[in-house]
């Protein structure tokens, strides 16, 4: 065959392939006909991946299909969230969000408004806690705060990134108690923890699940838990409400979302599958050991929840005067 003949042949083959694929997607009756993609905004191995894997077995059984965990890290999570918000609303793309989802609206220029996606449900709530070294001089939150008040700027508070969850938590403490810390930033939770272990900072805020092993290993002491009630994993640590302050310590809740416009039956299928998975005994036990609470907030209540979180977080951001610079 001559060149033209061959080119034509190639085009025909590609065309046939494209037609077949359109056909097959149109012909798909049963949902899910192919793996559902769980888009995780962080690198493999972190909390988002772990949550997906904890949900996976029961979810797959409940929905009658398989899932594919896709890590799309970057941009503080905004790459993944933008991707999910702009994905075709066919029910095959779901994303996981946490407080950063709300925060990045204010800390970056590529943040996604929570109004742009449809929340499915909340699956877990892991509160944060304030930790100091086990041999630190402060034995209670009160002692710590009075020291910090008397010595503005002297207490070194590590965080996992400026503008990220735990930095904002620390700012929250400053806002409600009137103290001033010196914020030492690290890239991620691990270096943050290492810094406290090595005594390079005085205190850190971090989610309980990560802190627990060090508490049990007698390396850290928790001063307060950042929620409205005491945490079952550490029952003798007071919660911040008891101390007389509003819950401002930002922990980690995970809420699964999908793009707007997914047909009602698929929405329901996804929601029910998630709910079944999070009610599984193994899931609940797993998180309970980590200090997390398998808390359910349904799609009807989510918008109000998001709005509430948004209000609290925005207040702290405004207090700190943080602005995205590019």
């Amino acid at each position: 065959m001559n060149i033209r003949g061959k080119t034509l042949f190639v085009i025909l083959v590609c065309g046939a392939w494209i037609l077949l694929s359109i056909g097959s997607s149109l012909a798909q009756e049963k949902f899910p006909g192919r793996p559902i993609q769980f888009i995780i905004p962080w690198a493999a191995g972190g909390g988002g991946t772990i949550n997906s894997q904890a949900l996976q077995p029961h979810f797959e059984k409940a929905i009658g299909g398989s899932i594919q965990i896709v890590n799309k890290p970057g941009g503080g999570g905004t790459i993944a969230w933008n991707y999910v918000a702009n994905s075709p609303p066919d029910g095959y793309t779901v994303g996981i969000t946490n407080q950063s989802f709300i925060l990045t609206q204010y800390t970056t220029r590529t943040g996604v408004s929570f109004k742009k996606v449809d929340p499915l449900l909340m699956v877990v709530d892991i509160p944060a806690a304030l930790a100091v070294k086990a041999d630190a001089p402060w034995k209670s939150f009160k002692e710590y705060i009075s020291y910090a008040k008397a010595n503005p700027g002297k207490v070194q508070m590590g965080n996992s990134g400026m503008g990220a969850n735990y930095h904002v938590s620390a700012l929250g403490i400053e806002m409600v108690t009137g103290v001033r810390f010196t914020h030492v930033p690290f890239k991620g939770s691990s270096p943050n923890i290492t810094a406290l272990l090595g005594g390079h900072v005085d205190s850190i805020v971090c989610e309980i699940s990560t802190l627990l092993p060090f508490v049990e290993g007698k390396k850290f002491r928790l001063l307060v838990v950042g929620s409205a009630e005491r945490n079952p994993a550490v029952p003798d640590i007071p919660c911040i409400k008891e101390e007389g302050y509003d819950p401002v310590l930002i922990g980690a809740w995970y809420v699964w979302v999908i793009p707007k416009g997914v047909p009602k039956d698929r929405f329901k299928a996804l929601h029910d599958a998630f709910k079944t998975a999070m009610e599984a005994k193994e899931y609940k036990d797993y998180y309970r050991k980590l200090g997390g609470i398998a808390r359910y907030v349904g799609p009807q209540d989510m918008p109000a929840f998001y709005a509430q979180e948004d209000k609290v977080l925005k207040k702290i951001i405004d207090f700190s005067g943080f602005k995205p610079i590019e």
Partner: protein
Amino acid sequence: MEVFQNMVTGFGIAATPMNLVLCLAGCFVGTLIGVLPGIGPAATIALLLPVTFNLPPATAIIMLSGIFYGAMYGGSTTAILVNIPGEAAAAITCIDGYQMARRGRAGPALGIAAFGSFIAGTFGVFLLMLIAPPVAEAALKFGPPEIFSVMVLGLTILSYLSSGSLLKAFIIALVGLFVGMVGIDIAGIYRFTFGIPDFFDGIGLVPVLMGLFGVAEVLLNLEQIVTRQVFESKIKGLLPNREDWKLSALPILRGTFIGFLLGVIPGPSNTISSFVSYAMEKRLSKSPDRFGKGAIEGVAGPESANNSACAGNFIPVLTLGIPTSAVMAVIVGAFIIHGVTPGPLLIKNNPDIFWGTIASMYIGNVMLLILNLPLIGIWVRVLKVPYGILFPLILLFCFVGAYANNNSLAELNVMIFFGLVGYLMKKTGFEPAPLVMAYILCPFLEEAFRQSLIKSHGDFSIFVTRPISATILALALAIIFLNVFSGMKEKRKNLLQKLKEED
């Protein structure tokens, strides 16, 4: 002697049939993904984690660690064969390893990499077994000022990484710094991102490596009619000969120590250790101009270093539960999912897992050596495939690797861009190694610098009043001094020579 008692228990656990089989499986998968560029151990371990759910924790950890080790072995394979580093730590192996392959000595290069890795890895595990807890405690003392000093030390060896013009080495290193500065800094400012969210966390390492080394090399070869042989067809032996061993013995030894010590420090320690080893070997060699043209020490040293660094990496994980890199973070996650908390209580609560894992590392190293040696014959044969068929496949692998890294199409653009950059660099006399080194070090260097100053409220003495930091900086200074000194000596010698000749 308690240690040996524990090791016996450990071997008892590691040597059960199931654990042995899965260790082998892990090593095999690890080697495979190490060879496939860009699909890194972190992603694979995370991917295979669900598969391990029904396995007992010790078995799961053994299998996943095998993947990690295997990837290290596999990464050097592609570096030597096609100039594509399987991961950053293998980048330095490209320099002399690939040159050896082009001269028909791929076999000895692969062989010495395998043997060196084995010796260093085994020794590293041995050290791990004996001195893990105290080393871990010492590593904790490395705060921001110490990290800064280590990075400075890393930069001082930059001059050794290039065999060409020193001026150009520094210039391209500065360009590397620029590349490293893209993205969010520690104050939360997004620098040089031009609004592209894919760059917010910096320009990815994998696409840069793929482009700079892999794509650029293919482009350079394509210039000439592809029927020409890129690799010399007469294969000169499959294994390192006596001469090779003589040259490599000390580099392997030195590499092992450098790797292990640096592996404990958080950060890009594996990569730094391989770079430091290369620089050290070049400095200590009696014929440094062989480096860059296929000197086997340039493969033996770095490969040993990055393997014993792996053992070093495990120390903070097993004793403190802190990961020092992305891969380790996934392994920590694996522990947690299986209900085992790595950390200070691991050795007390789950001694079987602790010692079983260590024992399996020995076994894993042996398995990898046995796996890789026969493969050398196959790999060498791959090189005989006509380049016309080979190069599209190489490019395909680069694409898959760069994409799969973060599921990002933007990173493909980065790869293609750096392919162009690498191509131009080669034409204008710039070498990639200093760029890569600076690019990797820059974020840590700057971060540590600014963190230290935040802590000390602007007081510079923090770098010299802390003992560890001061020592390292002094070492760096000494190296710079030595360089200048020997450079001056060299110039004086040449001058005297010239004067003599004029007489």
